[in-house]
């Protein structure tokens, strides 16, 4: 029975549609795995009972024409779920229960899926190792003491460890793709505006984008199909009709042009990353694609730009957590200012405070032009780089991260080194374009490594097709010894 949990989403959906698998049986398999999750700490809220109830309801009256019939799904705890605690990994929202459902999760439930649990993440999605969560570190199932990446670390860990058949995360600077890369899974950050941000706890509004995290590219196409769509409640949502990504998925990528940006060859990059990249080129060439060298000259400014824009948005977005209306309120206050100070000092963790301070600073009068305005200009240049390149190529291939998963605590006290982890993923968010990370090999420790494919705005189909072709040739096999269950 536990083999079912190992299956990918497409296989599971197929079994259910063929009535060879009941939703209840499926759900029980995952619950069994979740109950042995203690060491991974990937869940913040376990919704097993509710999920079983939903599974039984589904089996009584199965709606098989949906995209995700009877599939239990655990989601990042950044998505507001009606009646279920939504913490954003923060003490501030430790006991916050929304009375509304995010558009993206609602879309999933409308396609026959139901909630299995809420997954751990960095506090307010600020982090690259899931070490900033108020609810403790998440461990990467690939090895004890390794981080799963972040901020969607709980999502990546739970998915890799077969605790959920698929999941969703959010990606502001790499928060889907980097953990996917660290855990040997697939993660897609869609075009900004493809998935609604309504009901997703905001980190940096101009960068945040929800996306699927799956075991295969085909699963990824299916999930994107289910979660994407125009939402009039989100002013930045793109008006566009729904796509059938999974139906249109093909590994025929003959004649497509793939760009290789020279600026992504950073100093001190491990040899194995270089090899991985070379191998990626080789595979795509074998699939009939043409490899073209390109230049994205402003890449080197992406990280500093990101660490101005994202904290600026965040400092303002997080102002609402003031203890007045909902969430945590410090009991040690005698007046309004003290309540603000104590609530926010006690309610937020160090990384969140650091970014609020940076953001407040770069928006301050006298610094605004030098930092925020300049960063917005550079952001436009970075976007222009991509626009120029996409006149020549259909997609861009890069490594997903400059290294494989690192040890817990290794970078915790060195924010710059931590931020550098997002060096390949951040430009994509600044440009608002889609990118996917697929598992493509391992390092000397046998830790997974990912390759990233970057596409034109709204060109997710082509991106998925290229990833699909590459995935077939790479034939990555995840071999976990399930140490955490022992």
């Amino acid at each position: 029975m536990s083999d079912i949990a190992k299956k990918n989403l497409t296989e599971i959906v197929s079994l259910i549609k063929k009535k060879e698998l009941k939703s209840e049986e499926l759900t029980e398999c995952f619950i069994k795995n979740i109950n042995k999750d203690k060491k991974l700490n990937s869940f913040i809220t376990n919704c097993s009972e509710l999920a079983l109830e939903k599974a039984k309801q589904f089996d009584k009256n199965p709606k098989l024409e949906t995209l995700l019939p009877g599939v239990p799904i655990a989601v990042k705890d950044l998505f507001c779920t009606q009646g279920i605690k939504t913490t954003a990994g923060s003490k501030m929202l430790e006991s916050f229960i929304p009375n509304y459902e995010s558009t993206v999760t609602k879309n999933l439930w409308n396609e026959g899926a139901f909630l299995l649990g809420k997954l751990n993440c960095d506090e307010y999605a600020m982090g690259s190792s899931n070490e900033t969560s108020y609810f403790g570190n998440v461990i990467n199932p690939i090895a004890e003491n390794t981080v799963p990446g972040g901020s969607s670390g709980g999502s990546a860990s739970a998915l890799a460890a077969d605790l959920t058949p698929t999941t969703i995360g959010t990606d502001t600077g790499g928060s889907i793709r980097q953990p996917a890369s660290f855990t040997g899974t697939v993660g897609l950050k869609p075009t900004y505006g493809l998935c609604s941000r309504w009901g997703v706890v905001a980190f940096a509004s101009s960068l945040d984008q929800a996306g699927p995290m799956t075991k295969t590219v085909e699963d990824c196409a299916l999930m994107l199909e289910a979660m994407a769509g125009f939402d009039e409640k989100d002013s930045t949502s793109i008006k566009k009709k729904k796509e059938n990504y999974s139906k249109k998925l093909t590994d025929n990528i003959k004649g497509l042009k793939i760009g290789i940006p020279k600026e992504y060859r950073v100093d001190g990059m491990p040899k194995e990353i270089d090899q991985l990249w070379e191998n990626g080129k080789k595979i795509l060439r074998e699939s009939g694609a043409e490899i073209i060298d390109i230049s994205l000259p402003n890449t080197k400014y992406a990280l500093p730009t990101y660490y101005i824009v994202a904290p600026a948005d965040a400092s303002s977005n997080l102002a609402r957590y003031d203890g007045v209306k909902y969430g945590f309120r410090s009991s040690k206050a005698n007046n309004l200012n003290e309540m603000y100070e104590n609530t926010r000092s006690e309610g937020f963790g160090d990384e969140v405070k650091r970014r609020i301070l940076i953001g407040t600073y770069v928006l301050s009068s006298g610094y605004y032009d030098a930092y925020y305005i300049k960063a917005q200009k550079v952001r436009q240049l970075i976007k222009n780089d991509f626009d120029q390149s996409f006149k020549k190529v259909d997609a861009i291939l890069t490594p997903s991260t400059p290294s494989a998963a690192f040890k817990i605590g290794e970078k915790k006290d060195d924010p710059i080194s931590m931020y550098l982890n997002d060096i390949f993923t951040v430009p994509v968010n600044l440009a608002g374009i889609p990118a996917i990370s697929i598992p493509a090999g391992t390092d000397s420790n046998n830790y997974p490594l990912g390759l990233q494919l970057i596409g034109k705005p709204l060109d997710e189909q082509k991106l998925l097709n290229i990833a699909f072709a590459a995935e077939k040739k790479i034939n990555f096999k995840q071999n976990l010894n399930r140490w955490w269950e022992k």
Partner: protein
Amino acid sequence: MNKENEKYLIKGEKGKWEVVIGLEVHAQVTSSSKLFSGSSTKFGAEPNTQVSLVDSAFPGMLPVINEYCVQQAIKTGLGLNAKINTYSVFDRKNYFYADLPQGYQISQFKNPIVGEGKITLDLPNGSKTIGIERLHLEQDAGKSIHDLDPTSTYVDLNRSGIALMEIVSKPDLRSPYEVGVYVKKIRSIMRYLGTCDGNMQEGSLRADVNVSVRQEGDKKLGTRCEVKNVNSIKFMQLAIAYEAQRQVDLLESGKSFYQETSFFDIKKNETRSMRSKEDAHDYRYFPDPDLLPLNLDKELIEKIKKNLPELPDQKKDRFIKDYSLNAYEANILVSEKEISDYFEEVVKTSDIKLTKNWITGDLFASLNEKNISILESPIKAKQLASLINSISSGLISGRAAKEVFEIMKETGGDPIKIIEEKNLKQKSDPKELEDLIDKILQANKDKVSQYKSGKDKLFGFFVGQTIKISGGTANPQLVNNILKNKLK
């Protein structure tokens, strides 16, 4: 205090001081729902009953622009003869306060929806143009209630998110009187347009008043002080007078002062400092990433322009032309849309001069007496027209009409019915009047002979007697004619 038609100057020991005033009027947009949410904007609801998840800034909530409010802002901009910016941006103004749920107010900073414009004020010694700097859209905050509990503050978010237009004037105003005329004019324009009800008691219209002084003849602007959130014209005028005098006193005693923000204490009739420039908030404005820039269709602006109603200035010109009114009379009649509507409905069927006189005379007096608006008047336009027409047709005398009006203003009744009930119909039957006059002449034989011997003045006495004895119903013209005949 200076007279209205004199230049407003403050006489100090060291000469005369000119007062320079600029206004930031906050006008609530007439709209059934809020600027970025669907919540109702109805005034006077129970606290926190008109609050959506967006208004209370729950996690993951996003603003969506209310297009009707945008159209209202465009309309107002056009009414202020201003440039409509096809590109404008919503910014976040960041500050912490308990009644500001988001921790920022969505406003427009660098790129407002409406640019420069101007309006004309009619002042006792001619007209004056006041420049409009800009108009932008922004959200209102909620309300903190400090007096319900000795230790806690309550917050009512019903107002949170309501659309406001901030209309910023250039520093072109020079006296409290001008400020009064300016605010009334802006309010009148918005009421004509239906974009703001201008109800100051309900907080639909308030203003921040920027005051500075300089010696007469100086070109340079002095250091200004901003008096925040004043919600009546009278308080604005008092605040300006107080604040200007305070500045003059300081400057004359050789003290300089810093730019500061204060509020007007209506109980003590003085302005008091809230914060100086050094403690000024750094609002950290930046474009709201949750909202796209507002790109307006030129066609939409043209369409709104085409459908713009007649505005006070245009109506005034038309009234002068069509009804041969003078500028003063026309100004009074167009000052509020409801008054001009009333006037036009009456004048449609009635004599212009009588209509004008009755409205600006007896009707206004009765409204003032009861402290009600023309919309609440118990005498509707049709009834006043009927009353006026009764005079014109000779059915009743002007004197009787006053009597009928007194009844109408209490009961709102139909004038024709009142005339009949009170038997006020003018006696115009010559036979009947002749009999009456014969009786009067009979009873005053001595006066008749005095008249006939040359005391012409007595003619008026006979007319008066006739009217009096007829109970005011005798047609004066007929009485005149008959008397003339009989006394020949």
